[in-house]
């Protein structure tokens, strides 16, 4: 069991990070903390993708001259496609963070606070 856990430690790390992020999004009452939780959540998934693409002792999939003559050995190469996909995901993540931060600024300008409870209270008072 222990071995099983240790041998797949990368997945456990990503699951731990994901849950951490989820907790941040649900459990925290401050909007910025929620946003940080969201970021951790996204990063966890990015780590997951990176770990599924990598192999111990392998290198980037660029064919060398000798490969061209003989058979290319798949063991020598990582699958870099998930890594490339993550470039897109990182961009998406940054964009999301950007939008979220912009919205947070709007909220702050409107309510002068970022605590969810207080905002709810203010809104209840103003009837909006």
């Amino acid at each position: 069991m222990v071995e099983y856990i240790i041998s797949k430690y990368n997945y456990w790390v990503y699951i731990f990070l994901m849950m951490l992020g989820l907790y941040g999004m649900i459990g925290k009452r401050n909007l910025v903390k929620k946003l940080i939780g969201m970021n951790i959540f996204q990063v966890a998934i990015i780590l997951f993708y990176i770990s599924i693409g990598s192999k111990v002792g392998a290198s980037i999939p660029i064919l060398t001259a000798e490969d061209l003559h003989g058979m290319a050995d798949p063991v020598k190469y990582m699958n870099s496609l998930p890594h490339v996909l993550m470039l897109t995901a990182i961009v998406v993540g940054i964009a999301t963070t950007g939008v979220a931060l912009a919205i947070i600024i709007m909220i702050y300008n409107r309510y002068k606070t970022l605590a969810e409870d207080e905002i709810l209270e203010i809104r209840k008072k103003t009837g909006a």
Partner: protein
Amino acid sequence: MRYGYEQCIVLIVVVPLITSFLAALLGWFKRWLCYPLVLAALGISFLCSLGILDLVMERGTIHYWQGGWEPPWGIEYVVDHLNAFMLVMLTFIALVVAIYSKKSVEQEIPEKLVPYYSIFLLMVTGLIGITVTGDLFNVFVFLEIASLTAYALIAVGEDGAPMAAFNYVIMGTVGACFYYLGIGYVYIVTGSLNMADLSQMLPGLYHNKAVLVGFALFTVGIAVKMGLFPLHVWLPDSYTYAPSASSAVIAPMFTKVMAYLMVRIFFTLFKPHFSIDLIPITQILTWVAAGGIIAGSILAIAQTDLKRMLAYSSIANIGYIVLGIGLANRMGLTGGLLHILNHAFMKGTLFLVAGGIMYKMGMRDITQFRGLHKKMPFTMGAFTIAALSMIGIPPTGGFFSKFYLVLGAIDAKQWAFIVVLLVSSLLNAVYFFRIIENAYLEPPVTAYATDGGTHEEIKRDELPLSMLIPTLIMATGVVLLGIFNERIIAFIIRFAVPASF
């Protein structure tokens, strides 16, 4: 000639994409340029979608390799009957709402006109992209384009909007993350991202745990994005506080595209046999959907804010669509797909009317609607038609989708769902007739009458034509979809339903 037709598949995405940046750029110098640019782009997209539909009806499924890269390595756009009709619907509604939006945006958020239109177009691009692509990861990219822009479109609304948008960001991101985590799991096992390729590879792997996890993540992720009860919490606030034009474009389109994606994944990516027999996911979904239908309808009755009521009614209607998907037989799925179309039109109409009322009266409280039919007879006429369709009164479209859903439930021998469908249309009647009653009958409150509140004194004060005509077009669409539903089914939807049903 036909070669040119094929380019439509890529033009339908590229034209609005480029124009959205162009609009931002040119709008910097000449604000008035934005509106015609947006209309032109959406007009071209609409024409493209018609061209695609024509081509699909003639030739069946068509493929387009992005940059000439051969799938499964390159990104492939695939259009069959299912997404061809979705494309026509999306581009048409986007065009109509865009025409409508001018006055409304100018009134509600005049200072943000240029970025608004740019983002509006970008969102439409995203939605079209999700529909047109045949690549799982590409779906994610377009999904995020559409979502991010939707957050922005909502956030610029009135007082509660930023908070609603923020909640939507969190929920939406979780949904999207689940979705691309699902892609990861499927990728581990198959090493492919192309849907057609995957659907060939997956049947041998249906008992693989990673595939099962991937499938579960897809389902949950999409369910969050489409606002399926009980994952709908972001939806009511977002629809309520968004600017009128935003809710009129997000409400009919966004959740429908997600429903489309669900059909794609359940019945194209995975074979129906997997989604129905191997794991009981469709069965679970029907019950969730039934819960959503009833809960959404009851919550809608409790609302006094028109847009919030419409939002809850959207939750109920997403329930209808998912119920149709979950029934997983020919009639049921036909009903579900038809309801995607019908609901897009009726909800579009209703949100356009809500926007119109906001524009003229500056409020949405349905208890204040007294005497509105005198003030805005055509708008209220459109509202009535759409409301009747929501209730399911023939010959409007809503009746027919409900009819097929009932037939599907009978075919599946699911008596409980028949009861749910029938009861929900009565609940719909309760909340829509409440408004119709208010708008048509009760004497108007004195504020709107010049002479002691007598009937005759209300001046007609209709919407400007640029808002009224789109509203009426949509309302007419609701009726036409009903009358010609058989044509739509015979020529398009029949082929969109998996052959094994």
